[in-house]
């Protein structure tokens, strides 16, 4: 299995989705929103930071209004680039604006069982299995907690999840499932065990934290407290807006971009005011609710446009972006899944979003499918190949070879062909067989993708985590569990 990590880098393709004047207009609108409408920060600690930095704080309503220059000055302190470290240093990721990495998506509640094909509630064993399969693929560069370990206690679930991933993969872990102070504190201690201490962790953060905002224009108190603790420890932290046109954002896309931007940059500024220079990232997965029933869509042209536009905003603030792509709303790996996951990932990829989340889900990030995971990896590989574009030089024009073959020959027996055939993309899951062969078997991408995942799960042995570290982690987890409440939550 591969230790290599695939990323989009030095792309030839480009897209201009927003002009500089449009970005400025969105930025100005965002500052107006933060100053005039305000953002809800339901955390004592966050409100204290705002008060100390000259914001207008309504303690009763927990709403903060901040002048634009305070936000702008705070954002200037964000480091423009930093690494996401991995347990295996060879798998460290560079958030430098010139790499696009893919993670597993999260955090789902059900799993299509890899053996039975039945759908069931997610458990800790699923977190373990998915981490192992992801560890073996070169497309998955880092982990989110893919599914909720619903057989573990509520107050320590997020810790069991990251421990399970670290024990089954050497890649970077970004958790979106830790959103209170007690768990965040414990998670940082656990990460320090791997990095070799708190100071080492600052240099090589093997953990990063992603917090969801509460659109429109709000945050969750626990998330804010967890993010502040992470920023203090030098753990990369991002706030994700999932503002949705029609429901949690204006129906018009520009307005929803501004609402989400206000949520993200206000919270990012908060972290910089509290801990200047803390590594932060922008995170987003805006969408549009379906006008017919208000449903979360998990795809559609608006998602694709948001995917490309958001990196222009994060570039404007000069911070890395974690962007929602893939995550189809389809119920099965099918036509809809292929369209949504390809276009969302293409659009977010072409603008060089640093992190894409992520592979593996059906039904709008709720149901994990190993087949979908493997096919999503192939989608990323296809897009990575597209981004490299067409190289034009003497070698690739191959005039000597063209002359040698002449009219009416073929290129199969040419040395140039043998050398460059490896440039051609060879899919794992696309059906290019003769029709008769398909007709006799009637299998397809879904079968092959599932078979690959099964093979990996049966064969792949990840580099083990030092059992002593695992034991220390277990002690930390026990320390946050309520006495006498250790039975599984359900």
């Amino acid at each position, binding site marked *: 299995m591969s230790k290599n990590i695939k990323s989009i880098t030095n792309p030839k393709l480009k897209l201009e989705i927003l002009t500089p004047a449009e970005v400025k207009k969105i930025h100005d609108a965002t500052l107006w929103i933060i100053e005039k409408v305000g953002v809800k920060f*339901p955390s004592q600690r966050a409100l204290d930071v705002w008060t100390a930095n000259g914001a207008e704080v309504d303690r009763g309503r927990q709403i903060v209004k901040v002048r634009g220059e305070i936000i702008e000055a705070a954002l200037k302190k964000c480091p423009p680039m930093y690494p996401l470290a991995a347990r295996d240093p060879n798998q460290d990721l560079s958030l430098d604006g010139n790499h696009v990495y893919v993670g597993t998506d999260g955090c789902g*509640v059900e799993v299509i069982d890899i053996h039975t094909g039945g759908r069931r509630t997610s458990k800790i064993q699923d977190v373990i299995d998915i981490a192992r399969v992801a560890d073996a693929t070169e497309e998955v560069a880092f982990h989110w907690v893919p599914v909720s370990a619903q057989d573990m206690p509520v107050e320590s679930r997020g810790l069991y999840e990251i421990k399970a991933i670290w024990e089954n993969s050497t890649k970077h872990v970004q958790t979106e499932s830790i959103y209170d102070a007690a768990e965040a504190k414990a998670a940082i201690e656990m990460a320090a065990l791997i990095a070799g201490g708190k100071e080492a962790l600052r240099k090589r953060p093997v953990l990063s934290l992603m917090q969801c905002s509460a659109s429109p224009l709000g945050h969750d108190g626990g998330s804010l407290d967890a993010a502040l603790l992470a920023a203090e420890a030098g753990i990369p932290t991002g706030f994700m807006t999932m503002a949705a046109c029609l429901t949690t954002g204006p129906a018009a896309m520009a307005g929803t971009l501004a609402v989400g931007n206000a949520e993200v940059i206000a919270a990012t500024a908060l972290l910089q005011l509290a801990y200047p220079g803390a590594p932060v990232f922008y995170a987003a997965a805006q969408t549009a609710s379906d006008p017919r029933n208000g449903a979360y869509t998990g795809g559609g042209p608006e998602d694709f446009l948001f995917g490309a536009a958001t990196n222009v905003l994060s570039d404007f603030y000069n911070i890395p972006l974690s962007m929602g792509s893939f995550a189809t709303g389809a119920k099965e790996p099918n036509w809809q899944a292929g369209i949504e996951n390809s276009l969302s990932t293409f659009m977010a990829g072409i603008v060089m979003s640093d992190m894409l989340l992520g592979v593996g889900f059906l039904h709008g990030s709720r149901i994990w499918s190993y087949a979908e995971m493997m096919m999503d990896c192939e989608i990323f590989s296809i897009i990575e190949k597209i981004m490299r574009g067409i190289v034009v030089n003497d070698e690739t024009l191959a005039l000597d070879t063209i002359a040698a073959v002449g009219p009416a020959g073929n290129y199969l027996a040419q040395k140039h062909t043998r050398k460059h055939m490896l440039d051609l993309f060879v899919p794992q899951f696309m059906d290019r067989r003769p029709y008769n062969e398909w007709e006799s078997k009637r299998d397809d991408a879904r079968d092959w993708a599932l078979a690959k995942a099964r093979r990996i799960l049966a064969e792949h042995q990840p580099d083990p985590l030092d059992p002593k570290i695992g034991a220390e982690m277990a002690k930390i987890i026990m320390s946050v569990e309520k006495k006498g409440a250790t039975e599984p939550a359900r």
Partner: protein
Amino acid sequence: MSEELFQKMAQSIVDGDADAAVALAKETITAGIPPLDAITKGFVTGVNIVGDAFGRGEAYLPELVMAGEAMKAAVATLDPELKERGTERRTLGKVVIATVDGDIHEIGKSLVATMLGASGFEVYDLGVDVEIEKIIGTALNVNADIIAMSALLTTTMVKQKEVIEELDKEGLRGKFKVMVGGAPVTRDWVKTIGADGFSEDAIGAVNIAKQLVGAA
């Protein structure tokens, strides 16, 4: 004369124009039209028009919500007059609805509350981050038919279970039907906690609520 007024009232709901609906409601009071007639012959007609169009896919959710809000405003205007005359608007039942303790995710719950209200339920929306005691206490106080709870997180979803356990413990389970919802809620979960109904969206929630009170 009142026929024309009833039509205007229905239209105000179709237009989702709460201001117009309130003005028309006041006009009926001045004109001495029985408030119950104003509701059933006027405003409800509008709700039904929008509801039917929505059912056919010809109206979008915001139109339905705005019609619901206009209806709510009209009924609130007529309420004092209803009480004065000692008449009561017949509702399908009383629903106490909340997002559970520890969870601040409001939109789905609010949408369900609006839809239930527009569909003829009397809705007590307790907001977000609501403790078990308050949910059950309110349900007892208002003599609710249905307790409806939402959660967006797997870690807060367990509160739905705790509410049902508390109802069991207090011997109150038979008094209320319990509905649950939220992105992580699945059929398995509903079965595990022994809730009476769930829906994945607001329109479905109305249908479930109607079934639970025997009005479907």
